């Protein structure tokens, strides 16, 4: 019952009440709600004529993603230092749509990523760029999706582990690159990569859990660094990292859960990144994926929890399917914004979490059953079996050089 699609009247009844105090925050929110109301109202009309709605435009999205994989417009110059990210976002989106490129294209991707790998370990945003933890995470995830021996063997794990050591600070935190900024993304990317490639050691992440816990704020979410405001992207990094370390009991899970559930917008159905900010399609994953992680943590004490999904899965799917699909393919932040590769990836990843919940129960798919996308591993945002395959390949093939400890 809780998963039924909402009717327009119900959505409209949730309109923001500014209590006659207009501020920037309230007027921005009212603007978004106004545009979303129009879309949901129009949708209700359309849906009364076509019971198959809302529909995920799989083929349109696949088509544009495959075009992007080949080449990108000049406007993507600002992401010239994130080409490894672009590869992962596109590949993962295609995986979600169950439409991965052919084997030849995949082997081209392996070759390209090898050109982004540096001798001193890790991957840069493009060939000839310094290694960066974000782009390294993206490359390892992309290679896990490809999942061939050639893809796995292209990773130099001995130098990768050395690279991780050079970024570690004594307090257990990680810089994003040599001489670069330090925040919770560094920890998450380092941990995700180290776990998948079997280069993880306890020594490499000594004190890291304590540092992570110091990023949990009075609101319950996690910030990029101690003292800052709780934020969806960083909260995901925080709880996913603690889960990867098996140390989630060190943080206040109830407070995190409270903060996470409150990020779902009562009108839009999607998630905001911070308290009193606007909805954004990408938080469908960053906030959404925190829920299966939290359910898994709570199920350690209470088995029932593994099937408990704490957010409104239907409303999130409504937002993504009705408000966030660009007509010509790709997904968006919110109505009025232009599509881009990042939002396409994380909106589709969020759709997956909304459909599959904790992964333990049956999927709940809004609209046609053909809307169902593939499942993801909430800790890595790669398909569960692809994570498993990579992890086990690297366990069977230990890195040639042992860790310094």
């Amino acid at each position, binding site marked *: 019952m809780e998963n039924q699609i909402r009717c327009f009247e119900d959505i409209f009844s949730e309109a923001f009440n500014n209590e006659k105090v207009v501020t920037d925050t309230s007027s921005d929110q009212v603007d978004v709600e106004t545009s979303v109301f129009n879309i949901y109202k129009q949708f209700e009309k359309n849906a009364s004529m076509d019971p198959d709605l809302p529909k995920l435009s799989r083929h349109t999205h696949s088509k544009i993603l495959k075009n992007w994989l*080949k080449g990108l417009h000049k406007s993507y110059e600002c992401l010239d230092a994130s080409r490894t990210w672009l590869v992962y976002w596109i590949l993962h989106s295609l995986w979600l749509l169950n439409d991965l490129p052919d084997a030849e294209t995949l082997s081209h991707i392996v070759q390209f990523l090898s050109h982004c790998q540096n001798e001193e370990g890790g991957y840069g945003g493009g060939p000839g760029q310094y290694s960066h933890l974000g782009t390294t995470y993206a490359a390892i995830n992309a290679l896990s999706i490809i999942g061939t021996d050639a893809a796995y063997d292209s990773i130099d794990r001995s130098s990768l582990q050395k690279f991780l050591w050079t970024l570690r600070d004594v307090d257990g935190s990680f810089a994003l690159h040599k001489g670069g900024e330090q925040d919770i993304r560094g920890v998450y990317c380092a941990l995700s990569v180290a776990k998948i490639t079997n280069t993880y050691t306890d020594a490499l992440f000594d004190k890291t859990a304590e540092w992570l816990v110091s990023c949990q704020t009075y609101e319950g979410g996690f910030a990029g660094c101690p003292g800052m405001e709780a934020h969806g992207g960083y909260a995901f990094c925080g709880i996913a990292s603690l889960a990867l370390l098996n140390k989630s009991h060190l943080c206040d899970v109830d407070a995190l859960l409270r903060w996470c559930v409150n990020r779902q917008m009562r009108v839009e159905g999607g998630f905001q990144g911070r308290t009193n900010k606007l909805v954004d399609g990408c938080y469908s994953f960053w906030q959404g994926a925190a829920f299966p992680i939290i359910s898994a943590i709570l199920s350690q004490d209470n088995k029932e929890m593994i099937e*408990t999904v704490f957010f409104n899965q239907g409303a999130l799917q409504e937002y993504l399917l009705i408000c966030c699909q660009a007509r010509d393919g790709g997904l968006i932040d919110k109505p009025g914004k232009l599509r881009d590769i990042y939002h396409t990836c994380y909106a589709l990843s969020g759709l997956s979490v909304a459909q599959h919940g904790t992964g333990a129960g049956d999927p709940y798919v809004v609209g046609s059953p053909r809307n169902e996308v593939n499942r993801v591993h909430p800790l890595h945002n790669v398909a569960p079996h692809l994570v498993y395959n990579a992890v086990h390949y690297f366990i069977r093939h230990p890195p040639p050089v042992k860790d310094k400890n």
Partner: protein
Amino acid sequence: MSDSGENDAAWTLYKDRPEWRDLKPVPENDGPSPVVVIAHSEKFEDVYNYFRAVLQSNEKSERALQLTKDAVELNPANYTVWQYRRDLLQALGTDLRTELDYVEAVIKHSPKNYQVWHHRRVLVEWLQDPSLELELTGDALLQDPKNYHAWQHRQWVMKTFGLFDKELEFVDNLITEDVRNNSAWNQRYFVMNNHLGWSDLNVQREICYTLEKIKFVKNNESSWNYLRGVCFHDKRGINGNAVVTSFCEELYKNKCRSPYLLAFIIDMCDEAIKKGETNTFHNADRAILLCHDLATKYDKIRSKYWNYVCDKFKKIQKAQNETDNHENNIDN
């Protein structure tokens, strides 16, 4: 997102500059089968061909420093360029004050970029001079009072150099301007937590401040979250403070059904049960009723969560009843 300069006709490509003739440009090496190829402008490609050449030969020169400026302008998110620029600044002994001006201009142009703020931070560290930072971040926050990067830089400066003196005033102005600005509330917590401390007096003062703001706008999650954060430092807990409990009951009596108010009363019930201090206002029955109201009326989008919380209280209630029955049986 920089415009690669269709408009500047006066631009001379590096490959046409006599002073660069000695260096062989290095094209991007994507390998035999490139993917995600960005259709760069001629200018972009030219500048980066020379940047790669400089990087590869590890050239430390004034002309290389100038080149990194052009590369940054074309893509301020290129962390390799910024890192190399820092290496150049050190190798050349460049005047860092000029560099501060330069990065300030880039920040004004790209205020939501990790690299520019990090560059600024490294310069301030090198100079050990935070004197311009509060104004710089203040300006950025004037443009966007929720700019995460600006807040993060500001917090770092304040913590590193102990610049807390006027911050509460700064925060108060922002909250007065927009009582829903959660970043400002977070900064208020930061000042209390790192500077003023949670003495009984301060806790009481912050509670009064927050209650005033809640009276003004009741449906504001930021102020309610801050209230919970402050009460956490109250030794008596959230129930022990009569100002808070009577404030909440007064609101409830006056028909306020803000989900944040109801959630707060549920927390009070929870605390009372845990401490074994339940009363007419704070007990499992009331919590269950409030959870039900939230799930079905006032906070429907979160009905699953409220049903989950409700179940927790029902279990407590059941255990309580069983104990009572057991005691009754013994008495009989």
